[in-house]
């Protein structure tokens, strides 16, 4: 590619419009560092306001960018409906997380946390709109490093600092293994763009043993971010140890970026039939089955709600993998599942946090008898739990139903036993999940407690958001067409 420097500069300038939402995030990141340093002491919440303004501007440019598609920066940056909608979900949920952090941790000078949140958002944007390994690795590392800091930022006791240390060690090892796998793939193909023909050709010609090793190594890194089995061991510890606001962040947003990257990867690898695509199909089926089983079975015996939610989100990762498998071309259904998952998880973590504020505990036993004291909150929480199980009339049911029907039609056309096993396991684990999600209303409404809990009546911004999300859960469950029609028009 012997092109002159003016030509390259022209190309870079031409691709800047595609990069506007991220440019806003970069500027906002720098502004947040300065406000945290100089203004936070005089005007409280100045960093929070700067962060919110940045996110709002980024959202504005993203909506502005909606009809556009294209590639920029010599194929490194990819803007299509999948990336635009994924980034919309990411920005909206980051807004909620920022409010969550502001409500919970505004006592001390915690300005820096907002700039780190913005950096994590930028990393997720990179992950969801690239098909280049270099960008993907930078995105994964940006999200990881920001998450390590977020988990460790508020650490005041033993448990929190231990969670942060476990997270950083496990994450760095996974990233290092993934980097080695990437170097092998680069050596075998000579190209870093995983959608290019040269890359696929290189994979087809490569020796099987090395290519299997490289594939497994790469899946270690993606598996860590998605927390599928066997790379899930960090997530219960970290979810339990981190502050609830950070747990809400970890369980939702990084998974959106990673699953979008994984969907792109899987689509491009299985587009042509060769040894590598068969291997990745078998890999995704096996991992989805094991992840759903382990996530839901381990959640059964948890006594801590945050730990239970960690295993439940591992179980949902299995279903997300199944969705990636079932919709190799129709990304709108995958996005529907992602939206459903993010809404449900954000709502349930806000409820967990509200209860934690009242009782000071996240243990399931401490929920005993609280249903009568906080009837509205626990009714909404139960509705969200119903949606997480996948019972109508909620969004969780619609999302699961679509994944199952699509997998079934896949099975009918191919007759593959592995697909059938995956389908059966998916249905079975949904039944299993009933038993642990229903522990929440069981303890809250049917058990009584001896020690009286003083419940303060208060209406906070956070609760309003959570109730809105609960209403969304029901609305999208009864009228899934509202969301689906919106998504599928832009994909056709």
């Amino acid at each position, binding site marked *: 590619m012997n092109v002159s420097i003016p030509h390259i500069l022209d190309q870079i300038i031409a691709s800047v419009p595609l990069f506007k939402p991220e440019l806003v995030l970069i500027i906002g990141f720098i502004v947040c560092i300065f406000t945290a340093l100089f203004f936070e002491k005089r005007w409280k919440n100045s960093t929070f306001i700067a962060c919110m303004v940045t996110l709002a501007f980024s959202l504005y440019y993203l909506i502005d960018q909606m009809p556009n598609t294209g590639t920029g920066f010599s194929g490194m940056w990819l803007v299509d409906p999948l990336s635009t909608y994924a980034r919309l979900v990411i920005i909206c949920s980051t807004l909620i997380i920022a409010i969550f952090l502001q409500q919970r941790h505004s006592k001390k000078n915690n300005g820096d946390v907002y700039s780190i949140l913005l950096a994590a958002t930028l990393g997720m944007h990179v992950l969801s709109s690239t098909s280049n390994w270099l960008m993907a690795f930078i995105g994964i590392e940006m999200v990881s490093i920001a998450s390590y800091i977020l988990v460790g930022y508020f650490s005041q006791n033993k448990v929190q600092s231990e*969670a942060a*240390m476990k997270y950083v060690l496990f994450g760095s090892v996974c990233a290092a293994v993934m980097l080695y796998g990437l170097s092998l793939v680069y050596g075998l193909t*000579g190209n870093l763009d995983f959608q290019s023909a040269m890359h696929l050709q290189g994979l087809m010609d490569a020796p099987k043993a090395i290519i299997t090793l490289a594939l497994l190594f790469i899946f270690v890194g993606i598996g860590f971010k998605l927390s599928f089995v066997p790379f899930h061991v960090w997530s219960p510890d970290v979810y339990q140890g981190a502050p609830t606001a950070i747990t809400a962040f970890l369980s939702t947003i990084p998974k959106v970026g990673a699953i979008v990257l994984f969907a792109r990867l899987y689509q491009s690898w299985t587009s042509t039939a060769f040894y590598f695509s068969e291997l990745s199909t078998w890999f995704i089926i096996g991992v989805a089955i094991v992840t759903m089983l382990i996530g839901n079975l381990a959640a059964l015996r948890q006594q801590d709600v945050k730990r239970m939610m960690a295993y439940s989100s591992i179980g949902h990762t299995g279903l997300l993998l199944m969705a990636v498998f079932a919709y190799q071309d129709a990304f709108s259904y995958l996005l529907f599942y992602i939206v459903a998952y993010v809404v449900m998880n954000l709502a349930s973590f806000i409820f967990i946090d509200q209860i934690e504020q009242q009782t000071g505990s996240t243990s399931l036993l401490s929920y005993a008898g609280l249903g009568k004291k906080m009837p509205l909150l626990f009714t909404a929480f139960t509705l969200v739990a119903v949606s997480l199980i996948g019972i109508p009339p909620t969004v969780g049911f619609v999302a699961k139903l679509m994944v199952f029907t699509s997998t079934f039609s896949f099975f009918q056309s191919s007759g593959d036993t592995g697909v059938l096993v995956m389908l059966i396991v998916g249905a079975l684990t949904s039944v299993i999940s009933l038993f642990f999600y229903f522990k929440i209303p069981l303890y809250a409404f049917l058990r009584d407690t001896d020690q009286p809990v003083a419940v303060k009546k208060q209406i906070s911004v956070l609760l309003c958001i959570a109730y809105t999300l609960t209403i969304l859960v029901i609305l999208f469950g009864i009228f899934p067409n509202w969301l689906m029609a919106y998504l599928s028009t832009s994909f056709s």
Partner: protein
Amino acid sequence: MISLTHFLVVSACIFCIGLYAVLAKRNTIMILVGIELMINAAILNFVAFGKYDKINYGGQVFALFAIVLAAASVAVGLALILNVYRHFKTINPQDIHELKD
């Protein structure tokens, strides 16, 4: 004459040493050193393969970015380990087990 194979063998050896340091887990700092070795093995691979990619220099650019990212994550890791030491007075991973099933 040193060929590509020599580089690959050396980097595979470094990767295995790093992996051993991580899995043996005697000391948290040693785990960080192991991680650093694994990353450097990958970087060596990238630069060695990059010799044959004269058009885009993808491997060398990747190596540069990997070095920066590794430094950043090790800096964060050290800060968090310092925080653990304040609470536990030890950095042996086997003695740090407040969180478990």
